[in-house]
């Protein structure tokens, strides 16, 4: 789901950096309030956890698999702010250290997956608390994949409108919403199920250890 470099217009990523900067400031302020000597090492380890979870391949029917996202687990266990900061750090380190993932697409990836995904998971679990843990956590994880997919599809799909030549030729991502919405969302409906199964199983483990 990560958008690579080169497909987003400056009209998208420059304002996205501004929005993301505000969101990072908000998240950091919240974390700083609870700052003690354990916060930084814990956040560092959770950043590594966000990275590690992204390496786990979630099995899908048909023998295929997709990368896990892990943001639901992070958000449900440690809060939206922590999940967002950890995720953003992973994207930053991946872009600057491994050259993987884009410097121009970083704010959109961070906002979509790290913030919307995290917030969506937490909000969904709160709404479904009465349905029991398994359903609440499972649907929350599914939502944490679906919501970013919708956002990414929207951001990609408006590129031809935002940046094009006089004759309508796109300058960045070439497909409009009619294509991006189904093309991105449909596979993620399935990937979200894999993410839900993974998240529920790890959540149960965390509960057995009394970490949640």
């Amino acid at each position, binding site marked *: 789901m990560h958008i690579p470099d080169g*497909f*987003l217009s400056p009209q998208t990523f420059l304002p996205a950096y501004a929005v993301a900067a505000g969101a990072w400031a908000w998240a950091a302020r919240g974390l700083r309030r609870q700052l003690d000597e354990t916060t930084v090492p*814990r956040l*560092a380890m959770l950043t590594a956890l966000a990275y590690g979870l992204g390496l786990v391949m979630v099995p899908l029917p048909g023998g295929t698999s997709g990368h896990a996202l892990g943001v639901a687990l992070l958000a449900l266990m440690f809060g939206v702010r922590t999940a967002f900061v950890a995720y953003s750090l992973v994207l930053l380190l991946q872009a*600057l250290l491994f050259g993987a993932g*884009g410097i121009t697409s970083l704010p959109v990836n961070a906002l979509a997956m790290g913030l919307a995904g995290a917030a969506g998971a937490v909000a969904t679990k709160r709404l479904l608390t009465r349905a029991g843990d398994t359903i609440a956590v499972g649907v929350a994880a599914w939502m944490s994949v679906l919501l970013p997919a919708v956002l990414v599809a929207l951001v990609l799909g408006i590129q031809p409108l935002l940046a094009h*030549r006089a004759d309508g*030729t796109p300058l960045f991502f070439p497909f409009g919403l009619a294509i991006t919405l189904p093309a991105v969302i449909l596979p993620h409906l399935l990937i979200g199920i894999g993410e839900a199964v993974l998240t529920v199983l790890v959540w149960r483990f*965390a509960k057995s250890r009394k970490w949640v």
Partner: protein
Amino acid sequence: MGLSSRGRLAAYATAAVAASLVHEPAILAVALACALGLAGQPRWRLLNRTLWAIVAFNLTISFGYVLIATWQGNFRTNYLLLVNLRVVLLVFLGFWFASHVNVLAALRGRPTLELLATLALGQMQVFARIVRDFRLAFESRNPARPRLADRARNAAAQGQTLLEKSLATGTEVALAMRSRGTFDD
């Protein structure tokens, strides 16, 4: 080149924005050639990594564009050249930057961020090794094709191990930092 790490980061960011403001394939091609020239001996290795990193996504987008635009009667070769050159240039710049800059040095002056990044990076390597080991061990333990449920449990075991290690290591690191006087006034 003599730039500091921060200077290189600024140069990379500027180049990335500039590449996004240029819409002529010829200019992007020249920019890519210059980048290749300036990159020195590792240029072909970096270019190889770049091409491997983008091939799947770019081929899909390019192929899709050819099909749809042709069907719609508005296919432009110029677009294919533009988007692929831009992506190659941006991703190449990213790999070039990553190979040349000590990111931790670039964060000097922001001690919390520097510490976060240092600690995270060390643990990221450990976690990458753990996930790789799990993948190999699963392959090793499956004489027959594993069922979906087995694959799911294996993925969950990876998540559980990573979670457990991240919590335990966070505590250990905090203790070690305290022991070394990091939190003393």
